[in-house]
């Protein structure tokens, strides 16, 4: 029977693994992800989770072990954060290009130096092009639910891609809330066991993978990965609808909209800031101001059409990024402007950088960003990107 438990965001991820029963889990601990894998090790040790738990000496090896396991056609899981994710980088490409449906929660943490263990999205944004599906969660229940949805999505024969769900360090990873969890038997209608239908390594039927493909083949294989993302794009609404049918919850598919239909200014943010933005909208609506918020939940495949449709509703966007591509912009603002240009739309997009390295961003701050957005809507032109709260 399903039950309500009080857990951190990290343990929400551990419980999702417990529910999905990956055949193989290989992971290396890193603050603030450590408690995800500690809890999983405890589940395995107690016999509550029948997974093969592989201890490794680094994140690069963790992902290499996951690639090996997934190539055997087995459901595979890991978790990491920040420098651990950065160390995996080479293997992330290997997993993506091998079309292996590995599922991985990533606790969003800044990169050093200087050492900082708090929330920052630059770690996952830096992995944009590795061929991984990428989602951002805004609460502990969503972390749990998204892991289950990702297994279903990633393991689909038309998709066959690895997927990561990002969760904000401490804000979710170490914050207790109550969530609903299920036993494995209760989810098998939604998430059947994984059968690799494409290719798999089998000692009884030996084959090789990862061979040389010259210029006459490589391009087509890259396009096939792109097609996998397009298949994922089609499947995400279906998976989410099916999840809702089974468990009664959904998290908004690509973009979780809040009072957007009649909004003059829509503020877009990821993760927990995207959820807290709703409070700023509530306050502004009480003051008679037509504000709306949109939490960008799926980052890859990027929901360009949904962004274009959202732009038809508003006079201006404000986009908050908890990440910075030095010398350019925040990760989400870049993508949103690109999507709008492609759609022939010209509403101003005000970029705001905020919350780097765990700097607290409150709904009262977000309200101030909305005020800037209304000014931008009036003038019809965005200001240079704003570094909100920067001390100089």
């Amino acid at each position, binding site marked *: 029977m399903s039950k*309500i438990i*009080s857990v951190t965001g990290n343990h929400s991820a551990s419980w999702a693994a417990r529910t999905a029963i990956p055949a193989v889990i290989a992971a290396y601990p890193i603050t*603030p992800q450590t408690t995800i894998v500690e809890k999983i090790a405890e589940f395995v040790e107690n016999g509550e989770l029948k997974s093969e738990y592989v201890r490794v000496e680094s994140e690069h090896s963790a992902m290499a072990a996951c690639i090996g396991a997934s190539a055997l056609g087995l459901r595979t899981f890991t978790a990491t954060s920040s420098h651990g994710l950065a160390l995996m980088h080479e293997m992330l490409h290997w997993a993506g290009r091998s079309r292996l449906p590995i599922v991985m929660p990533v606790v969003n943490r800044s990169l050093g130096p200087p050492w900082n*263990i*708090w929330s920052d999205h630059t770690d996952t944004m830096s992995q944009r092009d590795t061929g991984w599906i990428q989602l951002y969660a*805004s*609460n502990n229940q969503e972390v749990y639910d998204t892991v289950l949805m990702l297994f279903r999505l990633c393991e689909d024969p038309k998709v066959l891609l690895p997927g990561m769900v990002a969760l*904000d360090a*401490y*804000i*979710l990873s*170490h*914050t*207790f*809330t*109550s969530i609903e969890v299920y036993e494995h038997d209760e989810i098998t209608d939604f998430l059947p066991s994984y059968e690799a239908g494409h290719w798999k390594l089998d000692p009884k039927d030996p084959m090789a993978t990862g061979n040389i493909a010259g210029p006459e083949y490589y391009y087509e294989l890259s396009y096939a990965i792109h097609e996998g993302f397009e298949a994922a794009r089609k499947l995400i609404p279906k998976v989410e609808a099916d999840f809702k049918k089974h468990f009664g919850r959904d998290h908004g598919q690509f973009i979780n909209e809040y009072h957007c239909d009649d909004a003059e200014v829509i503020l877009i943010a990821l993760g*927990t*800031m995207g*959820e*807290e933005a*709703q*409070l700023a909208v509530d306050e502004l609506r009480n003051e008679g101001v037509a504000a709306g918020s949109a939490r960008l939940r799926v980052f890859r495949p990027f929901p360009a059409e949904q962004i274009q449709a959202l732009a038809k509703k508003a006079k201006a966007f404000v986009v908050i990024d908890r990440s910075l591509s030095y010398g350019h912009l925040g990760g989400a603002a870049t993508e949103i402007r690109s999507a709008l240009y492609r759609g022939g739309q010209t509403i101003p997009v005000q970029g705001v950088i905020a919350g780097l390295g765990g700097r*607290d*961003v*409150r*709904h009262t701050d977000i309200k101030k960003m909305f005020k800037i957005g209304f000014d931008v809507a009036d003038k019809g032109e965005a200001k240079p990107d704003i570094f909100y709260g920067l001390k100089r």
Partner: protein
Amino acid sequence: MDLFEIRFHGRGGQGAVTGAKILGDATRLEGKHFQAFAHYGAERRGAPVMAFTRVADEAIRIHSYIYEPEAIVVLDETLLENPTVKAGLKDGIFLVVNTPRLPGEIKLPVKAKIATVDATKIALDEGILVAGIAVVNTIMLGAVVRATNIASIESVKKAIRKGLEGLPDKVIETNVEAAQRAYNELNMGYSL
């Protein structure tokens, strides 16, 4: 109910985070939503630490820090002069302190509702010690719910039993009884 936010002040190793979580669980048993979290920095045993419980009737969409709590719980009275305890004070705030002193003996620059209990004595009486040091986190929860009415003592007892699951039954029941003692022995400088 609007948000009710509680800030715990303790020292590293005193179990402030566990206390904040068990309190959250007690409110959940009464149908509330909660978050419990710590202020993460460079924690070490003995250093001042803070933990927080945020309670509401509806699902909680705030994820930023707590700046102006409705209640402050001080597990170690030597922290009373610490600037972090004085941060975000407002009139009507509850202050629940582990001290042998009476509420009238504690001064704050705002109109606070002050309650005190000698939780350290209770811990020593009941033998709730870790490495020879009195542990007051669960004991203080009995005081907190009496002082603020944020949950019933029955829910606190259930939440303690759940939160300490895995420890010997005798240890758990001692903690439960100690929380009831703190509830009974609370000195309140105001009436609810």
